[in-house]
């Protein structure tokens, strides 16, 4: 009887219905209803997200989804951002591009994060996909501006080129002139990470001038301040602008043309860049400040009073990135000016100094949390914290979804009571019921993990460093956090017991990273042996782990679920523990 109902809709109708379902989770759910829905769904899935490029092989993806137009891939573990993953670890996108070149000639969008992209890859993209539109390379590396030139020259329908935070070999700005004079489709360009001090200004100006749909333009440091007016003059429709260098000798004519250019940008909502700021030039942006929703001042090395002067002009601000020069007093002022604030990131100006160089403490964060009811996302570097401050934050900001606190000195206790910060972070997870991401720091015992396991039911990503006392801590997290997808741990006394006892949990997660912990080589082998759907990879630059006793702890461990089996592109310092429990060296 059910069969009759399912067959009464022709495939095309179901396909049309499915086209309204965009989210991956929903699409996955749809595909599991019955075999015919699985079949229909896989033929009309246009967009896929693969959170770990080693969890599945390109061929498997292509086999199941033959008509994909948009793909997003992530490679290296998050701790690669902080140099914990040695060079050469992996995350190569070339095999994917090579397979897709043949299988997806109509591919339009490629988004990559933490992957190794070479000029060869970029040339292959330029050559293979005739309707290519979007290239986002987020924190990638391995390519140069020559590869970008190939993209510019060939991709006539390119709309978006976003290189955010990538490590690019910048051979000078001439790649921009490879966009043909007839090319006008650019909507978004983010080249802010390019490091050369040469840039082809005339090519840039001409490009900006003829691309009338340009909405996002983030320049790199090489573009001087006195060129901004000219560029903005050609693109008054910009919504998101990143300056290059924002400093020069003060000249009134330069200032007034700059201010004039900014005031003609009526759609501008987001500003960033601002390298080498000369404070006298900041008032040039005042005309747009009242409409700004996002402001990135994280390269602005000016003192708090100047920062406050600027922020008072920005009542609509929803997102602010700033250095700790803002100090507690500046954050207090921010909390009274910017009631709509949703995201705050405060970065340290002197992260390796032993003494504080600015007056930024837990008070700054507390004052923002007390006054900004819409606050959802926090990244805060500071040098001291207290349980009472964390409890206040938790009680006043129950809508927090991302909370990342970095107390710069590891294992710093509550400065008021000298106790661990277990209770404070416990309050965060208890009150912030929608918390999805949490980073811990300070002095923490196993108790904080007990709270996390008990309360953090929506937590998807947890970062832990220099915390905990025993395996019980890890056990609380693995057994209690139902939604956990990514767990990254460094320098904690977690060993074999919790890991082995919760082996099955690891198959429900994307990945687990543990470095400088106490997991033995023997436990890794056992895990690899018992869990065929997990790739258990040991990273050790000091030599093969089997040259030491099984009880010896491994340096770094990366465990992830995979349907593709062990990977074959491992460098000499990565060993995979597989079913044979014998060493496999690639």
């Amino acid at each position, binding site marked *: 009887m059910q069969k009759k109902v399912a067959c009464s809709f022709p495939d095309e109708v179901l396909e049309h219905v499915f086209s309204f379902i965009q989210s991956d989770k929903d699409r996955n759910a749809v595909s599991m209803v019955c075999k015919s829905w699985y079949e229909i769904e896989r033929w009309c899935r246009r967009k896929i997200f693969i959170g770990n490029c080693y969890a599945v092989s390109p061929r498997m993806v292509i086999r199941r989804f033959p008509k994909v137009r948009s793909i997003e891939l992530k490679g290296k573990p998050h701790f690669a951002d*902080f140099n*914990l993953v040695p060079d050469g670890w992996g995350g190569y996108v070339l095999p994917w591009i090579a397979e897709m070149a043949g299988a997806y000639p109509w591919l339009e969008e490629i988004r990559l994060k933490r992957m190794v992209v070479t000029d060869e890859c970029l040339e292959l993209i330029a050559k293979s996909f005739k309707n290519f539109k979007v290239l986002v390379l987020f924190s990638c590396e391995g390519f140069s501006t020559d590869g970008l030139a190939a993209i510019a020259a060939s991709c006539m329908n390119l709309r978006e080129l976003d290189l955010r*935070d990538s*490590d690019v070999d910048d051979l000078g700005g001439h790649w921009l002139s490879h966009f043909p004079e007839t090319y006008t489709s650019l909507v978004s360009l983010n080249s802010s990470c390019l490091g050369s001090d040469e840039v082809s200004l005339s090519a840039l100006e001409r490009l900006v001038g003829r691309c009338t749909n340009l909405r996002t333009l983030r320049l790199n440091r090489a573009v001087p301040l006195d060129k901004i007016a000219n560029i903005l003059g050609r693109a008054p429709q910009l919504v998101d602008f990143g300056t290059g260098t924002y400093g020069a000798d003060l000249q009134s004519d330069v200032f007034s043309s700059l201010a004039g250019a900014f005031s003609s940008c009526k759609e501008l909502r987001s500003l960033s860049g601002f390298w080498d700021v000369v404070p006298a030039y900041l008032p040039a942006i005042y005309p747009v400040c009242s409409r700004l929703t996002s402001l990135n001042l994280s390269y602005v090395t000016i003192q708090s009073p100047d920062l406050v002067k600027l922020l008072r002009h920005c009542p609509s601000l929803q997102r602010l990135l700033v250095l700790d020069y803002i100090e507690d007093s500046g954050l207090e002022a921010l909390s009274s000016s910017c009631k709509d604030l949703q995201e705050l990131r405060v970065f*340290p*100006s*002197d992260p390796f100094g032993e003494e504080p160089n600015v007056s930024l403490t837990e008070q700054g964060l507390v004052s923002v949390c007390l006054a900004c009811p819409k606050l959802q996302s926090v990244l805060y*570097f500071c040098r001291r914290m207290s349980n009472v401050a964390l409890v206040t934050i938790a009680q006043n900001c129950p809508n927090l979804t991302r909370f990342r606190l970095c107390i710069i000195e590891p294992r710093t206790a509550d400065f008021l009571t000298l106790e661990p910060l277990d209770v404070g972070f416990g309050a965060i997870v208890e009150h912030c019921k929608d918390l999805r991401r949490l980073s811990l720091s300070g002095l923490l015992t196993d108790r904080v993990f007990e709270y996390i396991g008990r309360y953090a039911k929506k937590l998807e990503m947890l970062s832990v460093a220099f915390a905990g006392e025993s395996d019980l801590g890890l056990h609380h997290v693995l057994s209690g956090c139902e939604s956990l997808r990514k767990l990254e741990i460094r320098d904690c006394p977690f060993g074999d017991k919790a890991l082995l006892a919760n082996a099955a949990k690891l198959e429900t997660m994307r990945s687990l990273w543990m470095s400088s912990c*106490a997991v033995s080589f023997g436990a890794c082998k056992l895990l690899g042996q018992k869990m065929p759907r997990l790739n258990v990879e040991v990273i050790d630059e000091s030599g093969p782990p089997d040259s030491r006793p099984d009880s010896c*702890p491994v340096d770094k461990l990366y465990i992830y679920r995979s349907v593709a089996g062990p990977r074959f592109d491992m460098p000499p310092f990565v060993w995979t523990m597989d079913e044979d429990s014998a060493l496999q060296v690639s």
Partner: protein
Amino acid sequence: MAFEKDFNLDATELRLGLPGTSEESEKQASTTLRISNKRAMPDMNEDSSVAADKKCDQETAPPTKAQVVGWPPIRSYRKNSLQTKKTEAETCGMYVKVSMDGAPYLRKIDLKMYKGYPELLKALEDMFKFKVGKYSEREGYNGSEFVPTYEDKDGDLMLVGDVPWEMFTNSCKRLRIMKGSEARGLGCVV
């Protein structure tokens, strides 16, 4: 315990440390040990603990507090941009590339090191082993097949020496020593 301090027993104490080091600095070293070496495990056997100790020695070699890898968790491009700012303030150099037609590689010089054109030209002559001709506003450089030129902020190729020194240092982006017929065309202004 107090009276021991009065006798300054430390000075005459037989220890394995170097003269001048004290227990405090050794304690600090072992604190570093605790932070950066997580290998101490009660059930480890002899071999591995020896290996761990070896690693410990390497890690406690620096006398100051050892910087932990990847901590605080800040992306490299942020660290770099903060550092660049500091060094710029300290050195205030004005380095420009210098190319010579026919030379296999370029050099870099700091324009701030020179007070004027004569010094700059002498330095270039020494660096590339050539001689410029005599400069005149009307005719440029006469008497040599080498002509010093520079690229200014607008990307134009200019003859060195035409504008006041300050204006030159503010607008010069790179230097180029031209040679041969191409140079003569520029040097000889009709």
